[in-house]
């Protein structure tokens, strides 16, 4: 299987008055055809910025300072705005977190959906576009699609709105869909529906998904591979089973532990990784996770570890991952 997207050493920095924020600091990964890659981490870890960087939708004071984004063999970084416009919404599309604010309140959803089609298919006739819009709404499970084309965003419920947004994202059969916290703003009961819808549609149409979320549970269900990000870097990446059942980075371990489990003992406190992610303006020297790590040593505070292979397709960025005890809660020697 070939990679449709290969991100190599991506660095996106924000040059603010208070200093340089290294939101994405040397991130590399691949996305293969028809797979779901989950990118997981706390807020501010740089996940969303990575997503936006792929589409080169970074506004000043942000800038992609280094790296390659190779999509189907072509590097996107040197491409002009006009060229990117042809790719956005067409070959690569994106779904945002809050469907209410993603949709323009003063236009019908029909208008917004048809626009997505028309912009990339100027030769299509009005009827053809209308037909396709109806078809898309049907495929995301919206009843009476012909009528609902004329409705406005506020006339839909949250879950329905997100389906519309997904329809827009899939309108031109993209090769890659970047989903940025697609279910965070939705009710828990709707979340599963929407996630399953996304997975099914992507399989049917052959598109890959990058699923960005802070919710380990979501990613465990949906993703084929998971990348864990912390303070602008990927600290662990590998197939989902590996990451979930054999996590090697202390941060990943912490994330998995903090998933609330129904099977736990009553009255057991929810686990929380102590401390907070540092401000990206003021990163400590060495490994960014060191201050919160239960297995840190001297070298962690001085140098930044590189990614090391742990298993088949499984990499970790940690000096001490070999010393983590089997109970995953303490450090050996």
């Amino acid at each position, binding site marked *: 299987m070939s990679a449709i997207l290969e991100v190599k050493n991506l660095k996106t920095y924000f040059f603010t008055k208070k200093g340089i924020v290294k939101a994405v600091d040397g991130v590399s990964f691949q996305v293969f055809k028809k797979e779901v890659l989950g990118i997981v981490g706390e807020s501010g870890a740089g996940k969303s910025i990575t997503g936006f960087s792929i*589409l080169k*939708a970074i506004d000043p004071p942000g800038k992609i300072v280094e790296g390659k984004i190779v999509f189907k063999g072509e590097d996107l970084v040197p491409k002009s*705005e006009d060229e990117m*416009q*042809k*790719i*956005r*919404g*067409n070959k690569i*599309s*994106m779904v*945002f977190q*809050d469907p209410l*604010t*993603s*949709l*323009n*309140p*003063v*236009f019908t959803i029909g208008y917004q959906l048809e*626009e*997505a089609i028309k*912009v*990339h298919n100027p030769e299509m006739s009005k009827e053809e576009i209308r037909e396709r819009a109806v078809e898309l709404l049907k495929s995301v499970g919206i009843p009476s699609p012909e009528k609902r084309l004329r409705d*406005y965003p*506020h*006339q839909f419920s949250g879950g329905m709105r997100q389906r519309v*947004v997904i329809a*827009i994202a899939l309108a031109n059969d993209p090769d890659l869909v970047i989903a940025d916290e697609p279910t965070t703003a939705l009710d828990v009961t709707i979340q599963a529906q929407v996630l399953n819808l996304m997975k099914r549609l992507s399989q049917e149409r052959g598109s890959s998904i990058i699923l960005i979320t802070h919710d380990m549970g979501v990613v465990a269900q949906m993703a084929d591979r998971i990348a864990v990000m912390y303070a602008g870097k990927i600290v662990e990446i590998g197939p989902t089973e590996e990451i979930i059942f054999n996590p090697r980075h202390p941060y990943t371990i912490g994330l998995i532990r903090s998933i609330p489990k129904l099977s736990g003992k009553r009255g057991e406190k929810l686990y929380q990784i102590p401390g907070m992610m540092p401000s990206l303006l003021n990163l400590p020297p060495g490994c960014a996770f060191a201050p919160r790590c239960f297995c840190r040593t001297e070298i962690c505070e001085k140098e930044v570890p590189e990614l090391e292979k742990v298993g088949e397709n499984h990499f970790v960025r940690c000096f001490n991952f070999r010393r983590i005890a089997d109970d995953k809660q303490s450090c050996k020697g």
Partner: protein
Amino acid sequence: MLEVIVRRLWQSIIVLLAVSLLVFVMVYVSGDPVELLAPPDATEVEVAQLRKALGLDKPLHVQYIQFLKHALHGNLGYSYVNNAPAVELIFERMPATFELAMFATLIAVLLGIPFGIIAAVNPEKIHSRLIMVGSLFGISFPTFWVGVMLILIFAVTLGWLPSSGRGETVRVFGIPWSFLTIDGIKHLILPGVTLAFYHLALLVRLVRAGMMEVLLQDYIKFAKIKGVSRRKIIFVHALKNIMIPVITIIGLNFGGILAFAVVTETVFAWPGMGKLVIDSIHLLDRPVVVAYLMIVAVIFVIINLVVDLTYTFLDPRVRLK
């Protein structure tokens, strides 16, 4: 939707009544009302006769009812200074004021919106900064001074444009309009620009602020990610969102323009309602002032009503509850 219209209409009527009461109270309670309405040189007998004729010897609430009745029949007093019913005087001059106000509004809107958009899209560039500095000057100059300065530059020094009066008019539907003649337009320019000045500056700032806020919204980002061109994003997606409040502001500002017409008409000796009112205040021609206030109140209530309904109609979130 219908119930909204009915409700607003009802509210407007209440407002009108409240204003009429206010005007009535202020005028009739601040001193002898007969004094207001009698010619300055009337004798005691004439005053007493007038009092009886006007029913001013009756209790206050009866007087108020009478006042309202007269008002609804279009009788708002008689001007002794001009020897005509006050209402007639005002209606005679309304077209002139409206013409000036519409011209000024047109200038403000046709220049204000584009400049506001330009200043919002690239706020750091030099032309945006210039526009903002210009708008700052615009709201810092009092309207009357702008008029005086324009006269100084264009009429006195350069001699290009006339500094007073209305110019030739052409009658359409029995009403004289001056924008249909070259001479008329020449006379319209200076007062029109003067009147437009402040509101143009205000509009630029409002449009810029609104636009900048909208451009930060998620749906704009989403449109960009859909692959929509920058131009379309600004002029379709963003613009439609600020159009609703902008139209509201233009409508409400029209009231302000009508009010400031008073000043502009004075500076340029433009024969409109405003000049009439100022002259009347100086000449103590109270009936005209009262009539003006009532008529203007009606105009404003109508404007507010129209703006309210337009807003309700345009915003899909409100329209389709």
